[in-house]
């Protein structure tokens, strides 16, 4: 890593080392070096048609030192984590997990594509689970809707009503008893990360 630094901008080199640190946590994460650019990942991906950079190109760009291009693409957020690429990759690269690693760097460094809203969904989800210990589907969609397109929430009302009439929307909020234990677990993880931001 260090031996390549001389031809990279400082920003690229920072993003790279943060990414490589994340990838080390993925079992066999470093197999990313063995990509043969065959395109099986792109061909297997059910959503590559909607990506501005295909999975194969993502790895090529990473090698070319274009971290920022990757982080600004919609690719890492369009991935639905179906793992089709991962199981077919002839080089054994954990592509889905690599996408997660890119996502985590994007969030840490706050580098997002234009018209971006998934961050809002993740944050809403995490808020809810941290509060109740369990997800609340309706609250999640409300929170997400309020943060992104409040008016579009009206369009969801008919479906909500139908689900409600079938007893598929609980009236009572389900939550865990020992919320204190869970929130302390979460607090310990977050505190550690503040002390060592890259871990």
């Amino acid at each position: 890593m260090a031996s390549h630094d001389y031809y990279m901008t400082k920003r690229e080199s920072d993003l790279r080392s943060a990414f490589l640190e994340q990838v080390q946590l993925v079992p066999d994460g470093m197999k990313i070096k063995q990509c043969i650019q065959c395109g099986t990942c792109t061909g297997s991906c059910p959503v590559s048609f909607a990506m501005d950079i295909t999975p194969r190109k993502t790895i090529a760009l990473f090698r070319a030192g274009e971290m920022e291009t990757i982080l600004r693409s919609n690719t890492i957020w369009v991935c639905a984590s179906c793992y089709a690429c991962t199981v077919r990759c002839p080089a054994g690269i954990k592509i889905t997990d690599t996408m997660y690693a890119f996502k985590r760097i994007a969030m840490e460094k706050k580098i997002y594509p234009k018209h971006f809203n998934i961050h809002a969904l993740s944050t809403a989800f995490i808020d809810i689970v941290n509060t109740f210990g369990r997800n609340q589907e309706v609250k999640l969609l409300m929170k997400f809707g309020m943060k992104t397109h409040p008016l579009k929430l009206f369009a969801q009302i008919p479906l909500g009503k139908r689900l409600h009439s079938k007893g598929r929307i609980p009236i009572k909020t389900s939550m865990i008893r020992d919320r204190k234990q869970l929130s302390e677990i979460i607090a310990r993880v977050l505190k550690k990360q503040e002390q060592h931001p890259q871990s």
Partner: protein
Amino acid sequence: MQYTYYPGCSLESTSKAYDESLKKVFELLHLELHELPDWNCCGATMYMSVDETLACSISARNLAIAEQLGKDVVAPCSSCYTILSKTHRLMRDNAEVRKRVDDAIKPAGLSYNFSLRIRHPLDVLVNDIGVEIIRLQARRDLNRLRIANYYGCQIVRPERGFDDRENPTTMDNLFEALGAVNVYFPMKVRCCGGMLMTTYPEIALKLVKELLECAEENDAECIVTTCPLCQINLEAYQGKVNATFGTRFELPILFFTQLLGFALGAHPMELGFQRQLVSFNNFLEALSQ
């Protein structure tokens, strides 16, 4: 046989029918389910993609509580199944992850020592009970009902679990033995779009349309699923697919435990059939005669 039951958040709400039918099927086959005391959300893909240590730590709380009970964990939701399995593997195989998670859960008096088996109910039914025994217990014949068996992504991937990753057949074998006809359904492990239905609906609607189209082209009378997210995407968004693409789909989407419970003789109300948005009642009536 006894199992620890990890229902997951969806089974308390939109997928209530999965919870009801699963419990009924296990009861009819004399398998005991004990709900994991005070379980918390597995964190789903959201946590895992945002913060791996945090995701593993909240999942590890469930694993640690379950381990004390010493029984296999049954996780019906594909996402819960994948995340719990992934946490188990990451903690077992990666010392750094293990250390970080231990730092978070040990002060809470919890520890996880990797002795659990995390199982999908389809695996339990087919491998612990067996198709032949289930067939002998059946009270109703599925009478050549034409079904598309849809496994989705996360129960067969990423790791090699209880079935093939490209062409799983456990569910096909089960329903064939019970009298159904498995239609040709090459998209059986294709992604439904998952949470993209919320974040990028135009992408997810296209995926759902392709799945419905494939089932309908092969004359399926219903699609049978193993996952809450697949079920809701395929069922609740059919209207939107029709409005977007000018199609006229009206295909019932069932949980595999509903159809299995029906074959085992349970009353449709005990299996949550009244909760379907696209009714399956005509078929139930025909099959009951």
